[in-house]
């Protein structure tokens, strides 16, 4: 029996099957209940987001007056956060496909950030959600840039990673935009410049449009107040970058989040997949608006277990999930934002230095 640092116990194959079946049943129950309430919810969120953006951009036109600039920037930042997380991210997971509204179709929604939705659907919806926290398969384990787990190989360049992490936080949407290009592959020759150029084209088209919108066209509309609008837009984008970075890092890189070896995929069962989702994710406690502004990714565990269930239902589902976790001796990783963020910062700092992995926690008891 190896020593493991996991707070969860290994499940026997029978327990694992029963665990999977319970979560499957919970998911089916949730999906069967989806309907009018969820449609009303997302339509209301979209309305709030559109009015916030209108008010924010409107106030910025009066941004020469400092309180108007501050409020306008804040409202625009919040509207960008809502569009990014509660609308864009969740719609692209197909959570609102049941509505059959072409504007809310997961396969075609284009969100208002510089990353293309098509790349996101590939790197996030497919790779990250299928191969969650598997080193070398899920690119979200450090984004090819950071060493967050001792299982990742150390290199002297990681000494600078607190700096990389801070830059990534400030420029997060750009990090997401180029993630799928996997520029690291250029260094080891697994990708050619021609390939990168080809893959960069759609990213460039998308980001150019958004750059022009925030930093040229809207400022131009303001005439003499060009700079106040431009600076407000810049800060609103920064607010969103910092917020999304924080929420997303707190969802996967807290102290108890586990990383897995490729070998877990060999004949992985449904229950095993659920277990990996659970152990690789962590939640954040907070109030109603905190959950909404995080796109309900404050319930990262429920999101990973049930990515196609409308996210506003996660809070309700979390009670059932916690109860199941208790019965199966699984740690339900949750905490306040400051606590979880502190753990993320510690991981970034700690693993910039050489660190040795603890023995791997077994998922299945032998």
């Amino acid at each position, binding site marked *: 029996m190896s020593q493991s640092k996991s707070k969860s116990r290994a499940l026997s194959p029978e327990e694992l099957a029963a665990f999977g079946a319970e979560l499957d049943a919970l998911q089916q129950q949730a*999906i069967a209940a989806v*309907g*009018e*309430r*969820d*449609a*009303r919810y997302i339509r209301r969120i*979209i*309305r709030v987001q*559109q009015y916030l953006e209108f008010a924010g951009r409107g106030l910025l036109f009066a941004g020469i007056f400092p309180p108007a600039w501050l409020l306008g920037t804040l409202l625009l930042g919040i509207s960008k956060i809502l569009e990014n997380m509660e609308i864009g991210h969740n719609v692209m997971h197909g959570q609102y*496909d*049941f*509505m*059959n*509204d*072409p*504007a809310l179709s997961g396969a075609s929604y*284009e969100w*208002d950030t510089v990353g293309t939705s098509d790349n996101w659907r590939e790197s996030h919806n497919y790779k990250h959600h299928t191969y969650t926290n598997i080193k070398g398969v899920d690119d979200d384990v450090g984004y090819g840039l950071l060493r967050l787990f001792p299982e990742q190989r150390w290199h002297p360049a990681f000494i600078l990673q607190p700096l990389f992490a801070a830059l990534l936080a400030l420029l997060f949407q750009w990090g997401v935009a180029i993630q799928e290009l996997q520029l690291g592959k250029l260094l080891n020759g697994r990708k050619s410049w021609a390939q990168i150029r080809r893959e960069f084209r759609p990213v460039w088209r998308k980001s150019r*449009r958004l750059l*022009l*919108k925030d930093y040229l*066209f*809207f400022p131009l*509309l303001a005439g003499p107040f060009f700079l106040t609008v431009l600076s407000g837009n810049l800060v609103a984008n920064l607010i969103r970058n910092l917020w999304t970075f924080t929420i997303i890092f707190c969802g996967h890189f807290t102290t108890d989040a586990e990383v897995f070896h490729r070998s877990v995929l060999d004949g992985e069962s449904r229950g095993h997949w659920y277990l990996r989702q659970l152990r690789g994710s962590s939640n954040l406690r907070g109030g109603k608006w905190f959950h909404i502004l995080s796109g309900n990714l404050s319930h990262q565990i429920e999101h990973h277990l049930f990515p196609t269930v409308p996210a506003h239902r996660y809070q309700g589902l979390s009670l059932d999930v916690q109860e199941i976790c208790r019965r199966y001796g699984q740690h339900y990783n949750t905490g306040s934002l400051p606590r979880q963020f502190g753990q993320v910062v510690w991981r970034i700092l700690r693993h910039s230095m050489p660190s040795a992995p603890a023995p791997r926690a077994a998922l299945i008891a032998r």
Partner: protein
Amino acid sequence: MTSPFLSSAEGLIARKPVLGGLVAALMTEGQYDFWSRELGSTAAWRRVFARVVAAQWEAADTLTLTLRPNRNLGQVSAGQHLTVSADIAGRRHCRSYSLSRLASGRDICLTVRREPGGLVSNFLHDHVQVGDVLELSQPYGDLATGLVSDATRPLLMLAAGSGITAIYNLLASMAASGRSLQGELLYWEKQPDRFCFTEELNRLQAEHAGLRVSRFCNATEGREDAERGRLDAALAARLAGAYPAASIVACGGGAFVTAARELLGGVGKEFRAEAFTPSFATIDDETDEQFYELVLRRSGKTLRVSSRQSLLEQIEDAGLSPEHGCRMGICNSCSCQQRGGESVNELSGAALRGQGAVRLCVSRANSDLELDL
């Protein structure tokens, strides 16, 4: 994959390059459509929204809605259909309806009969009011192609039930274009209070000496101006004798259209038919039920499907919601790429082996299948 939602004209940008370009630089399509609706307009980037401007009773349980579409609706022509989308309990449901009355300007009329248990028809009857906005697809269907231009040939038109909407639209448009109508309209209804467009059809008959309107109703309580009788061999022989060179158009339920095709398919110069319910439900009884494996490549699912039921229904039963429209093989909304295997189109009887476009609503599996869905 073509969709009636997305195949519309370029919309605003194409017509107003300067303004459209500016709007496109500042907002997305979703935002443009949101604010337009928020401000009470039906304008949209490229989707077709239409305001209900009038509603009138046509007959028992049959309502005609006059709709004022935004500028994104393309050219409509006689005999075509549109898909109407309605939000019912949070979900958007689509059904096809034929153009019926001629409306003024760019307005269009759709005539909707309440179907027992019909989700959309009941919603349109019970909940839609003048002033409401519905989404429409682009028009589709080519029932009239060639008919309107060839004015010399007599017309033999057969309508059963709601099939009258498309047929009436064809006749009314031809009359409006100044053509003198020659031939006969045979129109069946199950109940006497269900006959539509009575005054209008009587007026057409009075104005066009060459046109005869024959109504049929087999209910015990009949109707004075209606005969009894079904579309049978005797009636077909009478029609074949009277109109040897006619263009024949039949419109009605699947069984009616199948009967019309059998009896009159070889008669006259051309035969066109459109069924508003698919007719393969009856064909299925003759084939042994087989089960095959259906692989959906994009969703990564594998389903066990029966050879007796349409692919669309079975995929929906599995909890997916592929795009669809008319559910009878005409609008092409549900068309998707087949990657391998063999499917059969029940309308044409044609088998598709290997790669090609398959219309899910009227196709069934004939072997293990792989779809790009």
